[in-house]
């Protein structure tokens, strides 16, 4: 694990000094994060890096994980889909099971804290059993809830309204809630296995192991096999490009223990890619960070053609590697990609194909775009900024009613 001062070389020494000053003003506080998986997905990745750094700053920070059976994760996956706008049917028995699993976890927990950050809907109900264990409860929603299914949101809202504050990744996700709502953008850790610099030999070794030849430009999408990531749309775009320009497509998807829908979407992708030798579909384990890093660095163009997106950390990762990125105009991707500068936004498989061709034919523009993208991430989306936001957030929540706090 890297020490905080290691980040000064990338984020700037003044940023590290700010973190120490903010933490010092907070004093000795206990901070607990709770989510539903130790690995797989952006939340677990952020926590695995942020929690040690918060401890280095003197905040006693613990990361707790709730456990659930398959039925529980089917309910929470249905929540996830419904909050992103899909119609789902959630009978009362499933909602009861969701509450019961939260109750079981609450009985198991022994922690007490000053601040608790509960990530996403899976552990949200813990507050009903554990309110007195922490001074401030904050619900951290990483999902695109700009158009939630009303029935599911009403259920969840009754839980969330018990919190002292909520945090969303984008302003369009804010809801009608009786407490302050804040905005924190996610981040990447430049020293994590997924983002650290790799040597050309390390990159080539991964490509050899995954049997990917660099005989044509590589178009890459890295994401879970999830319908909102539109992997089938990426294949459609690739087929359109292939009529005009030689290239290959790599679709690399990780597994997450809390996503039971993955196998079905993967089967759809395999069917769509059938018969096309220049499409490679890779099902990677959830801890294949090194492989993802190498793939991103080997790619010529990186695509994230999501139709719904919380923030789109795969876009951030690709930008950090100085790659030109084409993303669906959804959620946080809109914040990260600005046409002709930090990337391209698209609205359809045809648009995606158009921009892939555009970049394949303009390598100098693609290179410049990648440089701008990396600098944009350096300024706004590194983990040091995220840690600063956590410290600012708890300072504000600790002083309710104040809009300007001079420490």
């Amino acid at each position, binding site marked *: 694990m890297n020490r905080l001062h290691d980040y000064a070389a990338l984020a*700037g020494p*003044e*940023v590290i*000094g*700010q973190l120490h*000053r*903010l933490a010092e*003003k907070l004093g000795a506080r206990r901070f607990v994060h709770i989510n539903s998986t130790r690995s797989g997905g952006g939340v677990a990745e952020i926590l695995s890096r942020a929690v040690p750094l918060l401890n280095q700053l003197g905040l006693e920070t613990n990361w707790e994980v709730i456990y659930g059976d398959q039925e529980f994760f089917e309910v929470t996956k249905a929540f996830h889909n419904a909050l992103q706008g899909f119609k789902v049917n959630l009978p009362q028995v499933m909602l009861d099971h969701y509450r019961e699993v939260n109750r079981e976890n609450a009985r198991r927990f022994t922690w007490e804290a000053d601040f608790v950050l509960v990530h996403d809907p899976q552990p949200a109900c813990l507050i009903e059993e554990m309110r007195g264990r922490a001074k401030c409860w904050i619900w951290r929603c990483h999902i695109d809830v700009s158009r939630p299914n009303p029935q599911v949101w009403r259920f969840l809202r009754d839980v969330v309204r018990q919190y002292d504050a909520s945090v*969303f990744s*984008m*302003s*369009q*996700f*804010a*809801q*009608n*809630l009786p407490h*302050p*709502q*804040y*905005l*924190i*953008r996610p981040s990447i850790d430049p020293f994590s296995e997924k983002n650290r610099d790799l040597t050309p030999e390390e990159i080539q070794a991964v490509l050899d192991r995954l049997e990917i030849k660099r005989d044509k430009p590589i178009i890459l999408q890295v994401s879970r096999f999830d319908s909102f990531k539109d992997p089938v749309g990426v294949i459609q775009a690739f087929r359109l490009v292939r009529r005009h320009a030689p290239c290959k497509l790599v679709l690399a998807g990780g597994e997450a223990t809390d996503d039971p829908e993955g196998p079905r979407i993967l089967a759809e992708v395999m069917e769509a890619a059938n018969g096309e030798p220049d499409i490679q579909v890779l099902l990677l384990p959830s801890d294949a960070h090194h492989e993802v890093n190498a793939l991103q660095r080997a790619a010529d163009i990186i695509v994230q053609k999501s139709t719904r997106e919380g923030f789109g950390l795969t876009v951030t990762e690709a930008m950090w590697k100085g790659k030109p990125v084409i993303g669906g*105009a*959804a959620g946080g991707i*809109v*914040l990260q990609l*600005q046409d*002709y*500068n*930090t990337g391209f*936004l698209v*609205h359809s498989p045809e648009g995606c194909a158009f921009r892939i061709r555009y970049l394949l034919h303009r390598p100098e523009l693609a290179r410049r775009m990648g440089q*701008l993208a990396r*600098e*944009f991430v350096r*300024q*706004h*989306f590194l983990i040091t900024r995220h840690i*600063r*936001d956590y410290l*600012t*957030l708890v*300072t*504000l929540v600790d002083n309710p009613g*104040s*809009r*300007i*706090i*001079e*420490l």
Partner: protein
Amino acid sequence: MGNISDQVAKDPFWFHECFLMLMPIGRKAVNFRELLEAIRSLDESVLYYHLIQSRLAPSPPAVEYPNDLAYWAANALQDSKLAEKLGSFDPFEYENMGQVRQEVVDILEDYIMDLSYIPEARSGFELHFCKASTVVVRSEINAQTLEELCDALGKVGLDSLYYHFFEARWRLGVRKADDLSYWIENNFDLPDLVRAIRDMDIYFYSLKEIRETLMSVIQQHMGEICEQTP
């Protein structure tokens, strides 16, 4: 002016750091008419965020407009004429946010009179209104001489420049006053430098440009005591 760079101020200038936490309010505008209605009715803190504070929020590198409203008009409504009008507007010409709001409303009302259709934001580009809370901390950087000030300007974060130039205008309650020129005025006999700093087109510049321009202005008045930031 030969030894002015060595003159020591009565009180040091302490740079402060300013951490902004955005607070989305759950309301949006998808077209020009909704923008006008929101500007008329929303809390002043929301207008303050979109006109002033938003320059501390992440923004793409090539944004030429000085506030969110002008950028939204150009980027989402794709209405360059409206973007020009909102981009030329300077809230620092007004005494308080009530006057600022009225001026923005006037601009929008005048504009709507000539419109043959109501421009609509493309999907995904709606304007989502926010306000912000801030935490301010005294940094470890201070200056007692103008030479130290120049040195410090190259070291402090852009959030410090925001705090001392933007927040200061409203905090001090004095038009055209920022913390830095206020400190120079009270500690050194350099009225030309004070005036030059107050004449900077602060609202138009990005924070990075403010740093560069400020260094340049001080350098012009003080000779070689400052080194230009890279």
